[in-house]
């Protein structure tokens, strides 16, 4: 541009001169041709140098045409009027040509300027497109804007979310000290940017002086400053901030310059808005993703402790620098369940810190306060004052929390069913943005979901535990009845159903007194007072079928109701009664021979009388037989003890049952009472059996003794031996008292004795048949009875044949 202008000026002087010099030719150009050449020269000068050069060239060309070529030559005065008019016409035409070229040049220059502006804006747009973070965008706007505006420095101020403060968020070119105190200033203040934003009007100050005149209170003589342009940043009719450019010199802000600044401001505003939208959208997406991930996590497992720990880890670093979860323990204490930070070392450190500084439930702020009041705590800005207040005078802790550089915190309670289960804390340090209301909403939503998940898990666990408990209770033999405070039945386990003869479904929800037969008996004897235990007491309960059942009952009041444990002790009681009967019977059984022996001895030792030999012999043999009887009873008792303890060694040998049967009969014959006829009928072909011959002899002798004993009227007692398959079958039959049908099983029970009315005073220990059965079964044999009351009995013993 410059070089062409210089050329234009050169052409303006040289071209007319060169044409003028043509007059020295021997055949100089004609006056018309010279005029044409001069016009070319003017055109050249105007084309290259603009209107001014064209004008100069026009003057020189007109003078040259007039002097050198217009007749009379070498004279300025034209020869006639026509020639004078021709020179004047030339002048006019030349000027018109110069103007024409000037106009063209201007158009070209404008095009070039537009293209340059377009290039600059293009550069701004390109930089903005590359920018990703809000800060990058702002930096790009300032840097490129300063460049494009040909400014010395520039700055962007944005309105804060409350709309009352302007924050300088980016700058370029200003000295540090200029901006001190200008990091943020009120929108309502008397400053150019505030006013520009308020009024949505740009300010263009040609010089510092002009600005100072408009805003006298801003005068800062120490600061170098000239022209200033300040424009509002407007998006969709809404001011979001302002942009300022400071120029190194005074600047006349023409329309084009103003338009450029306005375009820059518009681009900046749109870029800022775009990035804000993008950031907001990304944050929203991030939150939604986080919430979705968190929800999925919370629903994934009933192990809420580990789920919450994972949740805390999920929150860092996007949602929080630190995330911790505290839970209320069963005793009301606050326990830190999880703490998360990107750096595992920091987590370990935080855990140690948590141990060193356990939460005080009465703490006026923080987790204990949130749990106590069930209200969220939102501290968007953690000030140092707040830290000082928070540590409650602990210098070491203050140092630690200051070191952490905590910026912003949210603590929300985990509330389910009106109860605070714990608290979720999110903390950001200075590397992350402050929390906003949006984050508080997110944290609250997260806490709500977490609390519900935890509550579900707890409920499930309780249900499962109860389920376990009731499953377990279903298997215990003791009856368990649970009543609530009002005495209504909460649960009845199967054993209790059996003992009380009730159906769980029919009594649950009803009062025990109204729905369970005999419950008043239980309440009267086993109902504990508040918080106490009572029992066990043993009570007889009359069943619906009239049978009596003995039940041992104990009750425990646990505050929310009473649990009764019931045990059916009917069998024990029966056994106990049988046992005490046995003691009575046995002592009687022992006492009778014992007193006989004692009496005989005392008699023999009488000194006041003399016995003859016969009397003496009778007494002596009585002593002998009674002592044997004693030995027999004691032997039975000892044998029972051995059988019970499983300590009775049994032989397993081959022996001849025929011989054994006969020998039993032979020894029974020796003391056979009168009126009894003992007979044997043995099949001689019965092969050898396997077992213990001595014990089998004992069994058979016992059966024969019983047969004799229970035949008080006398009669036949018969032993029969024959083969029954793989067994030798020995029957002992009598025609005595007999045994009722329903007693056929029980007579083999230990200590069991028939009703004395049925035995007509026949004594016994109640052990003989029990011992017989045990012995026979241990020989892999079997024993049974076939009898009818009053028709005698037949006991059948079968022992396996030897292989």
């Amino acid at each position, binding site marked *: 541009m410059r070089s062409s202008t210089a050329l234009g000026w050169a052409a303006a002087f040289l071209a007319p001169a060169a044409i003028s010099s043509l007059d020295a030719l021997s055949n100089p150009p004609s006056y018309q041709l010279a005029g044409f050449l001069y016009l070319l020269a003017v055109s050249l000068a105007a084309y290259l140098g603009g209107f001014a050069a064209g004008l100069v060239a026009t003057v020189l060309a007109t003078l040259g045409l007039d002097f050198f070529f217009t007749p009379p030559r070498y004279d300025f005065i034209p020869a006639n009027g026509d020639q004078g008019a021709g020179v004047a016409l030339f002048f006019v035409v030349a000027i018109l040509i110069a103007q024409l070229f000037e106009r063209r040049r201007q158009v070209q220059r404008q095009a070039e300027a537009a293209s340059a502006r377009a290039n600059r804006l293009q550069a701004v747009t390109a930089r903005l497109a590359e920018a990703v973070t809000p800060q990058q965008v702002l930096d790009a706007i300032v840097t490129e804007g300063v460049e494009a505006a040909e400014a010395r420095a520039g700055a962007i101020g944005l309105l804060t979310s409350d709309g009352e403060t302007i924050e300088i968020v980016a700058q370029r070119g200003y000295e540090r000290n200029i901006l001190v105190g200008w990091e943020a200033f009120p929108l309502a203040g008397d400053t150019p940017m505030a006013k520009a934003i308020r009024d949505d009007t740009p300010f263009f100050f040609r010089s510092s002086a002009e600005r100072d005149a408009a805003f006298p209170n801003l005068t800062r003589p120490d600061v170098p400053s000239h022209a200033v342009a300040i424009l509002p940043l407007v998006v969709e009719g809404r001011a979001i901030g302002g942009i300022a450019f400071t120029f190194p010199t005074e600047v006349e802000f023409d329309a084009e310059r103003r338009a450029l600044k306005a375009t820059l401001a518009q681009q900046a505003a749109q870029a800022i808005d775009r990035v804000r939208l993008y950031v907001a959208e990304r944050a929203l997406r991030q939150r939604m993703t986080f919430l979705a991930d968190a929800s999925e996590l919370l629903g994934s497992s009933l192990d809420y402790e580990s789920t919450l720990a994972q949740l805390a880890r999920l929150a860092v670093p996007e949602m929080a620098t630190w995330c911790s979860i505290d839970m209320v323990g069963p005793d009301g204490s606050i326990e830190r369940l999880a703490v998360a930070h990107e750096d595992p070392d920091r987590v370990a450190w935080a855990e140690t810190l948590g141990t060193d500084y356990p939460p005080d439930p009465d703490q006026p702020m923080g987790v204990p306060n949130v749990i106590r009041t069930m209200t969220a705590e939102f501290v968007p800005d953690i000030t140092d004052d707040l830290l000082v207040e928070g540590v409650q005078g602990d210098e070491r802790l203050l140092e630690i929390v200051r070191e952490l550089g905590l910026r912003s915190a949210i603590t929300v309670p985990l509330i389910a069913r009106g109860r605070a289960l714990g608290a979720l804390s999110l903390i950001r340090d200075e590397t992350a943005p402050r929390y906003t209301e949006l984050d508080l909403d997110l944290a609250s939503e997260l806490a709500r979901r977490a609390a519900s998940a935890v509550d579900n898990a707890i409920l499930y666990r309780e249900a499962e535990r109860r389920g376990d408990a009731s499953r377990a209770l279903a298997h215990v033999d003791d009856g368990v009845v649970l009543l609530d405070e009002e005495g209504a039945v909460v649960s009845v386990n199967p054993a209790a159903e059996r003992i009380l003869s009730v159906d769980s479904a029919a009594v649950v929800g009803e009062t025990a007194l109204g729905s369970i037969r005999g419950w008043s008996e239980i309440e009267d004897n086993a109902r504990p007072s508040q918080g106490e235990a009572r029992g066990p007491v043993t009570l007889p309960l009359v069943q619906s079928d009239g049978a009596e059942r003995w039940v041992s009952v104990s009750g425990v009041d646990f505050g929310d109701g009473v649990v009764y444990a019931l045990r059916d002790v009917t069998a024990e009681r029966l056994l106990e009664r049988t046992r005490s009967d046995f003691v009575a019977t046995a002592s009687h059984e022992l*006492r009778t021979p014992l007193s*006989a022996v004692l*009496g005989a001895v005392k*008699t023999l030792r*009488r000194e006041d009388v003399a016995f003859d030999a016969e009397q003496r012999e009778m007494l002596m043999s009585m002593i002998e037989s009674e002592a044997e009887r004693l030995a027999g009873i004691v032997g039975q008792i000892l044998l029972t003890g051995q059988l019970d303890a499983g300590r009775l060694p049994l032989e397993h040998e081959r022996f001849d049952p025929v011989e054994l049967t006969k020998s039993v009969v032979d020894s029974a014959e020796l003391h056979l009472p009168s009126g009894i006829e003992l007979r044997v009928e043995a099949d001689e072909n019965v092969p050898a059996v396997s077992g213990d011959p001595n014990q089998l002899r004992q069994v058979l002798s016992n059966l024969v003794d019983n047969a004799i004993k229970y035949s008080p*009227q006398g009669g036949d007692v018969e032993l029969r031996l024959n083969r029954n398959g793989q067994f030798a079958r020995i029957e002992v039959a009598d025609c005595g008292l007999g045994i009722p049908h329903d007693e056929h099983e029980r007579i083999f029970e230990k200590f069991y004795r028939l009703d004395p009315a049925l035995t007509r005073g026949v004594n016994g220990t109640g052990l003989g048949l029990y011992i017989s059965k045990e012995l026979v079964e241990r020989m892999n044999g079997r024993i049974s009875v076939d009898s009818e009351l009053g028709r005698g009995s037949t006991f059948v013993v079968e022992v396996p044949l030897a292989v």
Partner: protein
Amino acid sequence: MLVADDEPPIRLLCQVNLAVAGMDVIQAADGEEAIRLARSASPDLILLDLMMPRVDGWTVAEELSSDEQTRDIPIVFLTARTTPNDRRRAEKLGALGYVLKPFDPVRLAPLVTEVVERCARGEADALRQERPPELWPADLEA
């Protein structure tokens, strides 16, 4: 004397010790036999066991007291244990003495002699009112 007891050793002890005191002793092993012998032999006294096969002592006592011929024969009950009920029942049946098993056979004859002598003097009712003599088990006497 009639000794009615199903236990041979008891009968033997009574028999031997009463015999050496100069008494004639007959024995019954059950209630039936006791009634039969009481009627046939008219003993001066019956030592009657309560628990006997076939016919027990109670039945024997009732049977004898309802019989004109035998109602005055003094009965001394010979028994292992007595409950207050047993005692009342025995009193109703006119018991004139109790010998509780196991008894000291040496002291049996004096008791029998006392009862027989007092009854012979017609003091049976007085004896009943006074309180019939008892022979306690040796191990309880102290």
